[in-house]
């Protein structure tokens, strides 16, 4: 039962994923409410809480850690989307409970509408929001987003751990900050932090008995103007305090290595995973260069940074994605050390994740060290080129039948795939875009597909046929408003809802269309067809696509309709028991 390692006894050392360490940090903080929407690279946070919440239902006492959580008082849910997850989490925090909300970076976009005023009003029970970015987009379509922008936009205090140990420690610290200053705190990880494993020293799991109670206080929770501007003032005051009392004073934001340097007067400023690459590079080059590791990205420790750079000739800023820290250091240097030469984006790529060798090269360059990475030339001349092994739908995946059925239907209508626009969305079905299917003409975020299809329909005055794919979990997540909009405004795309009975791509989590909740309890099952019907859709068919002939006939029939049509292709994922 390796997956419940997060419940191991205090005092031991366990190898944990960054995401698992986040969970342990929350348990050691006495977290009582957790909500999430799954998304790689943050999925294991929810998955681990899911397992913990279902442990008591597992037979046998041999399950590791079961005794540890007998009185855990923990509520966990997979919410319909990240905004709802954050709202639910806020409600729990307003009622006094310590709360954790986890999501991937795009989830924060969804949640952002609520996040902004939430930071204004502040919280009661500690509220920690964990957001995982994905530099290099190893498991993310859409964009290569740097969520640290939200730290500025929302004025939310933000900590950036580099290792699993720090994931745990920073979550605990975040709960303390959140409760002390009554403000939500963001933990921002990246793929190589969230999916990094390393040894973590375990502390005591805190079992809290606190009962939630919402004590009315419109002064705190009603953001009507003109009160909202007072709230903004109070927020800025909190940030100033956190800057002085946490960023500048706590053990965060330390300088590593002695400032004895090699006479060059060179320093490095880094943060998150990049810091680990810096330390490797310095060791390999045998350099004694001071490194300022920034752990509170927002608010930054201005004094510490100024103090660090004031006697340097050159500074290298090593951070992934956007050069936010570099911009701040540049700003501080104008006062603290106007002659300072600042390196960063000019030596490091602005796209994709950093790697140890990229950082190694940059550091060798500013310190004038000779560096030859042995295989550099050979690797460029590698004669055998192997083609990219793109992911495939699993053998037996029900989506094979959807895509092949569509192809047959079009053939029988004397149409080619060129005559139809195919809208894609986020889920395993984005593999519609690769061989042998090639049924994807656009792909954006969850819920966008039907909205775009409607716009194309209107713009082209119904001249082009459109088939828009939506997954079951995506439909609940953000598909419903767009469907209502298309129906009400008299559009007529054909929408195929691929209902495989699970949130498959992120690890088979449940959603509202399945009877089991995140707590493993029977919950009312929300039937997609009932929602679709209630949205005003007249042309609706629920069908197992294994029944190919009827499925094909329905596609042919619905492609001719003047109103919105929906086919719910219902056949479970091969991994659903």
């Amino acid at each position, binding site marked *: *039962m*390796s997956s419940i390692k997060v419940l191991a006894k205090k005092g031991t*050392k366990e*190898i944990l994923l960054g995401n698992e360490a986040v969970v342990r940090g929350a348990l050691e903080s006495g977290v009582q409410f957790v909500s999430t929407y799954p998304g*790689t*690279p943050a*999925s*294991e946070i929810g998955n681990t809480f899911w397992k913990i919440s279902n442990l008591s239902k597992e037979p046998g006492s041999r399950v590791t850690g079961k005794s540890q959580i007998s009185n855990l008082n923990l509520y966990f849910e997979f919410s319909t989307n990240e905004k709802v997850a954050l709202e639910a989490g806020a409600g729990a925090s307003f009622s006094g409970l310590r709360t954790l909300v986890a999501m991937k970076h795009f989830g924060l976009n969804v949640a952002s509408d609520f996040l902004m005023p939430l930071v204004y009003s502040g919280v009661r029970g500690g509220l920690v929001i964990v957001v995982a970015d994905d530099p290099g987009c*190893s*498991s993310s379509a859409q964009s290569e987003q740097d969520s640290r922008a939200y730290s500025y936009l929302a004025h939310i205090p933000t900590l950036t751990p580099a*290792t699993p140990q720090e994931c745990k420690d920073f979550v605990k610290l975040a709960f303390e900050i959140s409760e002390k200053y009554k403000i939500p705190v963001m933990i921002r990880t990246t*793929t*190589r932090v969230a*999916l*990094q*494993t*390393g*040894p973590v020293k375990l502390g005591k799991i805190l079992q809290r008995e606190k009962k939630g109670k919402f004590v009315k206080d419109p002064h705190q929770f009603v953001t009507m103007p003109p009160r909202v501007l007072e709230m903004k003032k109070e927020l800025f005051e909190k940030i100033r305090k956190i800057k002085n009392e946490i960023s500048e004073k706590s053990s965060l934001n330390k300088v590593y290595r002695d400032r004895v340097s090699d006479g060059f007067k060179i320093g490095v400023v880094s943060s998150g*995973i990049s*810091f*680990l*690459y810096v*330390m*490797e590079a310095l*060791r390999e080059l045998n350099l004694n260069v001071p490194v300022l590791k920034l752990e509170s990205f927002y608010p930054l420790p201005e004094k510490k940074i100024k103090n660090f750079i004031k006697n340097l000739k050159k500074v290298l800023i090593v951070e992934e994605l956007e050069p936010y820290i570099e911009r701040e250091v540049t700003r501080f240097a104008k006062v603290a050390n106007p002659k300072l030469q600042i390196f960063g984006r000019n030596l490091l790529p602005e796209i994709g994740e950093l*790697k*140890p*060798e990229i950082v*190694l090269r940059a550091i060798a360059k500013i310190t004038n060290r000779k560096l030859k*990475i*042995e*295989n*550099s030339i*050979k*690797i460029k001349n*590698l*004669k*055998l080129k*192997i*083609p*990219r*092994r*793109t*992911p*495939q*739908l*699993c053998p037996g995946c029900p989506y094979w039948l959807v895509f092949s059925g569509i192809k047959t239907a079009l053939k029988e209508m004397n149409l080619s795939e060129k005559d139809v626009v195919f809208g894609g969305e986020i889920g*395993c079905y*984005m*593999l519609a875009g690769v*061989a*042998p299917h090639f049924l994807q003409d656009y792909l954006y975020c969850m819920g966008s597909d039907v909205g775009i299809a409607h716009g194309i329909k209107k713009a082209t005055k119904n001249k082009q046929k459109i088939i828009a794919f939506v997954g079951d979990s995506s439909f609940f997540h953000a598909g419903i408003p767009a469907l209502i909009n298309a129906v009400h405004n008299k559009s007529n795309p054909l929408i195929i809802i691929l209902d495989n009975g699970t949130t498959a*791509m*992120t*690890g088979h989590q449940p959603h509202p269309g399945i009877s089991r909740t995140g707590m493993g309890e029977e919950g009312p099952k929300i039937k997609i067809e009932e929602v679709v019907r209630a949205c005003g859709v007249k042309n609706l068919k629920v069908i197992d696509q294994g029944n190919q002939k009827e499925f094909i006939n329905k596609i042919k029939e619905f492609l001719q309709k003047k109103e919105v049509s929906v086919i719910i292709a219902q056949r479970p994922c091969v991994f659903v028991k």
Partner: protein
Amino acid sequence: MEKDFNIIISGVGGQGIITLTRILAEAALIEGKDIKTSELHGLSQRGGSVETHIRFGKEVYSPLVRQAGADLVISLEAQEALKSCYYGSRKRTVFLVNDFIKPIFGAKNTLPSKQIQKELEKFSKRVLFIPASQIVKEKLGKEVLAGVSLLGYAAFKKLIPLTPTSILKAIRKVVPEKYLQINKKAFNLAKRI
């Protein structure tokens, strides 16, 4: 100073690479070493290329092995071994490759092992091709055990600075109980090779 030991495991989604990674990390912990690993999840697991990194030693910072920095590459699929050349070095790298090819969907032709082996030699001090998939299929009836049997090979032939005893302890910790016996058998197969 004790040097870090850097391992790359490459292959195709579904070959049990994450489990193998966990086993190695636990074995290193048992021997009192510092450890970092890196893996990827999500869509890449759907039959795509998979690559994990394992580093252990006295003090390890980066979870990623650097270019030309691998001491050992374990490839569960021969074509994927080629992709790991990026981490290969004439001075330090041993390639331990499962002599097994999973055709790439949509590719015109599959690269023959001989040709791959020749290319790997340029990026390594030693290349070993073992028909692990075939062996475990014949002896234990399950191809997915190829990884654990290659791990056994690496341990018994001392290609990894971890003892077979520690790795077996780690297997007990990581592998679910019902698959434990067969995994131990797969690991011990290499004793006799």
